């Protein structure tokens, strides 16, 4: 009986230690919505290779900024732009020197209908569609890039009454994928798999039509002493993650 009791105590202790180590090796990551699919692929490899656990939340970059300023428990932030992380750095919310560009985003004009979007995006100039979906340009960098493209093409006035806004790039995508908007500016990563557009039709917008969508990552103050946060950032800079990131249509 005594043996059994001590055995139970030992196993209870062991499981406590396990629990504790699992807790210490978990990293809470705020991820820009456009990077949802790649981070899920990266997380699998990362967890297998390092033994750490990645817990991700997805949303618009502006929204994350507000949450981080108000004490959200994120340790690493993968933003959709470079200005928000820079702002956080100025405000001393991040580990000094941890800011780096993990991906450069590509914008795509997309329709769920095959053959609807031509290879040069001339469909934008035709007046055949009712709704053009974009992400909220005030909060989402891909939305801002979309408005820059329309400006460059001198289509801002012509499309004004047709624009519908999603709160983030995921919702902009959703409006198009449900067929409610015929066209939309989305992140190439949302429709790109293994080097090609996986459904519908798309025009990959040339990079010179908008400011580069530099996506920066930072370690936030909350992740300062977490080895898993450091490990994740190192992993993102490595070749294995780079291959995944490129396969979703990002530049590096």
């Amino acid at each position, binding site marked *: 009986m005594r043996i059994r009791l001590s055995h139970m105590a030992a196993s209870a202790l062991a499981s406590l230690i396990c629990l504790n180590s699992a807790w210490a090796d978990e990293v809470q990551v705020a991820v820009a919505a456009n990077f949802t699919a790649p981070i899920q692929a990266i997380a699998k490899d990362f967890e297998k290779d390092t033994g750490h656990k990645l817990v991700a939340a997805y949303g*618009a970059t*502006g*929204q994350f*900024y*507000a949450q981080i300023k108000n004490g959200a428990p994120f340790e690493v932030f993968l933003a959709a732009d470079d200005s928000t992380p820079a702002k956080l750095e100025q405000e001393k919310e991040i580990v000094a020197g941890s800011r780096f560009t993990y991906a450069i985003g590509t914008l795509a004009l997309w329709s769920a209908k095959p053959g609807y979007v031509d290879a040069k995006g001339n469909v934008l100039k035709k007046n055949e569609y*009712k*709704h053009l*979906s974009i992400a*909220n340009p*005030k*909060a989402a960098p891909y939305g801002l890039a979309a408005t820059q493209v329309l400006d460059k093409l001198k289509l801002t006035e012509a499309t004004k009454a047709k*624009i*519908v*806004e*999603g*709160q983030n790039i995921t*919702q902009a995508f*959703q*409006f198009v994928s*449900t*067929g*409610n*908007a015929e066209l939309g500016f989305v992140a190439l990563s949302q429709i790109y798999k293994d080097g090609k557009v996986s459904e519908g039709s798309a025009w990959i917008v040339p990079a010179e039509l908008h400011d580069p969508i530099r996506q920066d990552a930072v370690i936030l103050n909350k992740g300062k002493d977490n080895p898993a946060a450091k490990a994740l950032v190192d992993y993102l800079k490595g070749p294995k993650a780079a291959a995944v990131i490129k396969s979703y249509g990002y530049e590096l």
Partner: protein
Amino acid sequence: MPLDASDLGAIWLTIKLASLTTAILLVLGTPIAWWLARTRSWLRGPIGAVVALPLVLPPTVIGFYLLLALGPHGWIGQATQALGLGSVVFSFSGLVIGSVVYSMPFVVQPLQNAFGAIGQRPLEVAATLRASPWDTFVNVVLPLARPGFITASILGFAHTVGEFGVVLMIGGNIPDKTRVVSVQIFDHVEAMEYSQAHWLAGAMLVFSFLVLLMLYAGRRGKPGWS
């Protein structure tokens, strides 16, 4: 002026949406509430449950189904297109449809309680005086159920003003068409325009408090929603 033109546009749009929704709900909700209050049919349970669903469903669920149903492949969307109305997603009419669904229980339930509280007796008395059913309804039921109508109107209006999730899902954030106050506040917060967010959010808080004050002060100790 701390509120700019787009804020004022959002406020005006919200008032328009809430007024129209309340008016439609009073017309639609009165017969439903009357039926629910009086019927002995077995359908009373299921229909009552359907009417109450928006109370417990997350707005994202309602918004998601509306987005699919009103869209070009959905059954309502197909119907509106067949009628030549086009798609109503991303339009003011779409928001009205969404709000009617979303605020339905807030109008029907107070009315149902008010009708139920009248009881059989005044109707029987009216009938013995040879009042027609319509006459009875207009001259006996409506005056007796007046507090219920006031509560239903206030709650329907206020709940529509507070709507956010459904609008976010089917609105598309179009100025003066679908960008209501709650979405405008969310926008300001996301864009880090906190001072504008404060003004609008503060106005919403005061408005909501006044509405509830009106409701509770006018009620004088009567429990429930009737």
